[in-house]
């Protein structure tokens, strides 16, 4: 096409996080791991957290899913670094959507998946900690 305009399915921020995902991978010594799936579409998201003094020190993700699912997990792991566990418990998918500059309506559930994976990782951390405390 001779057209000068770049046509992409998502906005620049989403495309950037899809093409250059932040924090992709695993944490070998993760303190909490959350893996969730979206029954609606079949996407899978896994978030691993390193937690120190009640704060998120590091985060990694792996995602089986579309461009917006990968971008949502990339953005979520960026946003939460340095936050306390209580802050994470109040984390909303809307924050991911806003930080990405918006997602198509049909793709909002991808950001919900990121929120769920994050909360599942915290749950896993608390479960492990409770076991240690005993």
């Amino acid at each position: 096409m001779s057209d000068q305009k770049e046509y992409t399915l998502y906005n620049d921020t989403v495309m950037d996080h899809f093409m250059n995902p932040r924090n992709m991978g695993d944490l070998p010594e993760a303190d909490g791991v959350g893996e969730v799936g979206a029954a609606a579409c079949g996407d899978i998201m896994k978030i691993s957290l390193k937690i120190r003094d009640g704060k998120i020190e590091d985060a990694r993700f792996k995602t089986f899913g579309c461009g917006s699912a990968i971008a949502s997990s990339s953005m979520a792991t960026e946003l939460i670094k340095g936050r306390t566990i209580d802050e994470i418990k109040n984390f909303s998918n809307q924050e991911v959507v806003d930080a990405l500059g918006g997602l198509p309506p049909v793709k909002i559930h991808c950001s919900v998946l990121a929120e769920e994976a994050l909360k599942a990782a915290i749950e896993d951390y608390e479960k492990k900690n409770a076991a240690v405390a005993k």
Partner: protein
Amino acid sequence: MKSVYLDHQASTPLLPEAFEAMRPYFTEAFGSPSSLHRFGLRVRDGVKTAREQIATLINAESPDDIIFTSGGTESANLAIKGFADANERKGNHIVLAATEHPSVINSIEYLEKHHGFTSTKVPVNAIGQIDPEAIRAAITDKTILVSVHLVNHDIGTIEPIKEISKITQEKGISLFVDAVAAAGWHPIDVQSLGCQLLSLSPHRFYGPKGVGVLYRSRKARVTSLIHGGVQENGRRAGTENVPAIIGAGVAAEVALRDMGDRIAHVSRLQKRLYDGMMSRIKFIKLNGPVPGPDRICNSLNWSTEFIEGEGQLLLFDLHGIAVASGSSCVSKSLKVSHVLSAIGLDHALAQGNIIMSLGKDNTEEEIDYVVETFTKIVDRLRTMSPMWQEFQEQKIDSVISPTGIGQSFTERAASVSGKPAH
């Protein structure tokens, strides 16, 4: 950046000859074919030629059997709803293949919802083929129409239309064949196929958009869906989209003239693409028949395990390569392609789906570039995939090449999400 278009089942570029033929009909030959003066008569003559060109492409008994519509979807609507309306007295049951195009399925669903019709969807086998005997078994004394596509729009399966029409003719029932995915790429002879209705879409074979064709044998009655004047012999009211009709005629004539060469060319590329993908990519599966007599020459439908289709499509696009996908992530309904469900494909494999469809201008170099690019895309997405990791750690098994190490990706995904994906 390179630019490789592998989505010819979505649309094709307009043939320069067709464009040139259309040009005067936008400006100087602008009259309405219904007008009785020379402005109208000139245009009427052009439309007549186009009708003959289309009739020749599919060996219709007469150019009068050709109805121009706005596209393949309208043709399917007219074939089903128009036929149902005209034949309601005879019965209210329709038999269709489970893998029909949405324009067919949704037209029949409309009749069920609003006009008291019932239908029977006949299942297909693992490569999308319909068993003619299953059609016979589905026919009741209320059946008025059987609807089976010639080539599947998604997985490229060629259906045994002649065997099916033997049954419909024996039972005195009409047969509608959606030939949109076939026309221009596969010889079509409506007389030897034995169908009474057949639809095609010129923009799939280098014609313009905005025009479709319904072949209707004189033996089949259809009522117009669009009411107004008596254009198209009263079967489709409204002033004709003349430039598009002219372009459709030229595209049909060239398609027929070049069909042998086009088929030979894309078949060669299809084989090269198939061999390249199968040898270079691990855990990949072709959906539909292998290249050969059971498959249309210009498409390949793939499922690559442990990665999702939209991500593949996006990365292809970033490399200048245009492909399609039937993944749930690509559909607005979040459902995987109903065709992939109908062939019993594992859900995760359906999600990892992409469709490549070839055209006359693709080259061997392009095919090699696509295969090379795909190896990188697969590696990249697998690195990101939690399921690929779990497969490497032998926590889940491959569906394509099972090793017997436990639950599959789909089973694992269902346990992670709490319920199976639809």
